[in-house]
């Protein structure tokens, strides 16, 4: 069996929503270079709907694929729904990840959460 599912390889080879949003409403960065994974998420939110999302990732194949899948799962969704995104949902949408790579899906969940929290903080400040 191959290391990764076809879906992981597809999202790794053709990652969706790669890039930055210059005037993002929420930005979240998690992970660290020492461990070999960093994910950064940029959100554009209008009327509590995520209208655009972009990511940048330093990491292995499953980290890139998890970021890509996570952006697809929340794009166009209400903020409240995106808050409910779990790492399990990301991993399942990718047709599974090897056990020792599950932390990549956790990072994806945390990156989305961090970006949403950043959005909430900015919103309450303004």
């Amino acid at each position, binding site marked *: 069996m191959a290391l990764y599912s076809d879906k992981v*390889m597809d999202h*790794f*080879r053709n*990652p969706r929503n*790669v*890039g*930055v949003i210059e005037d993002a409403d929420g930005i979240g*960065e998690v992970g660290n*270079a*020492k*461990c*070999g*994974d*960093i*994910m*950064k998420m940029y959100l554009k939110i209008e009327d509590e709907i995520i209208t655009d999302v972009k*990511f*940048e*990732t*330093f*990491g*292995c*194949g499953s*980290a*890139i694929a998890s970021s890509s899948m996570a952006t697809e799962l929340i794009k166009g969704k209400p903020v409240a729904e995106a808050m409910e995104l779990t790492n399990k949902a990301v991993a399942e949408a990718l047709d599974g990840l090897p056990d*020792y*790579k599950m932390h990549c899906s956790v990072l994806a969940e945390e990156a989305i959460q961090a970006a949403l929290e950043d959005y909430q903080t900015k919103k309450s400040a303004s």
Partner: protein
Amino acid sequence: MIYADNAATTKMSKAAVDAMTFHMNETYGNPSSLYTLGQRSKDVLDEARAAVAKVINAEPGEIIFTSGGSEADNQALLTAAAIGKEKGKMHMISTAFEHHAILHTLAKLEKEGFDVTLLDVGEKGIVTAEQVAEAIRDDTCLVTIMTANNEIGSIQPIREIGAVCREKGVLFHTDAVQAIAHIPVDVVADNIDMLSSSAHKYHGPKGSGFLYVKKGIKISNLIEGGAQERGKRAGTENVPGIAAMAAALTDTYSNMEKNAEVMSSMRDYIIAGLSEIPHSALNGDAERRLPGNINFCFEGIEGESLLLLLDDKGIAASSGSACTSGSLDPSHVLLAIGRVHDVAHGSLRLSIGEDITKDQADYIISSVKEVVEYLRSFSPIWRDLMEGKKEFIL
């Protein structure tokens, strides 16, 4: 496909495949059996033993066939440990960047009361004979230092280290798994007491290797049983595997100089090409280096994604990134030469073979450049580095 992972394993040579299939078909007798068919198998072992011994300038009686390099390493260390224990000498010296077959065995011996000194290998990955001389104590029973490193290809001054050990009366073992049939090794001139080798690193089969033990050293067994290998390694001998190892070794060794010339020139060509990638660094010494080894760190990217994209382009390589090992830490070798985690994750090892062409070398260079640039294009670390929010390490 361009196979650039010859340090992991090599393709079997025609000589090895021919020897293996011939002996599987024809020489299936048990070497311990009395009848002609069995004795023919014994002859095959004798011939293989002589051929293997000749390559490293040993006596046939000093060769024990094993299942590979790891077994040979384990047996060498446990042999030295038993001798040391008898004499009340419980100190061993090695380096921080040995193969895990050595490091994990040393860790096991530490639990049994041995004291282990791991020498620094410096930023080029080379330990000196002076370091060894300084580390040797009255209770030192073994110095074990690899002939050449498997990840960064740095060649150790084993002749000088061997001389120091011989002078001080300390056993010297070298893990020569990456070196045999690639660079000259002479157990007499190099003052080697024990040496490990593995067939699949020189176009032989997996599952075959040998341990050289200088005459007069009392060998400890790993496997108890019958009287095979003079009672030092029980179990019916792997006749086809051993014959194929001898055929591969003889064949690869006879072309060693020619191969080294081709490989080292292509190695240097690829190193020059990859050095053009900004914020990259060669790992290991540029001069004292195995002919086929290229190892780089590229800042701002991670090794596994690099390998997967190179695989898509038909290039088989390896990396010292944590993600490729299934652990959280990157390669202990890269850490030992002082690479910090952040850049050690972005490493690439290419180990080319003697059949490499210039077109393939060009393709490797352009592919690696392209993939590194692509991965950096959406790496948040790279962005921070480029925007001056972080300092470049390389």
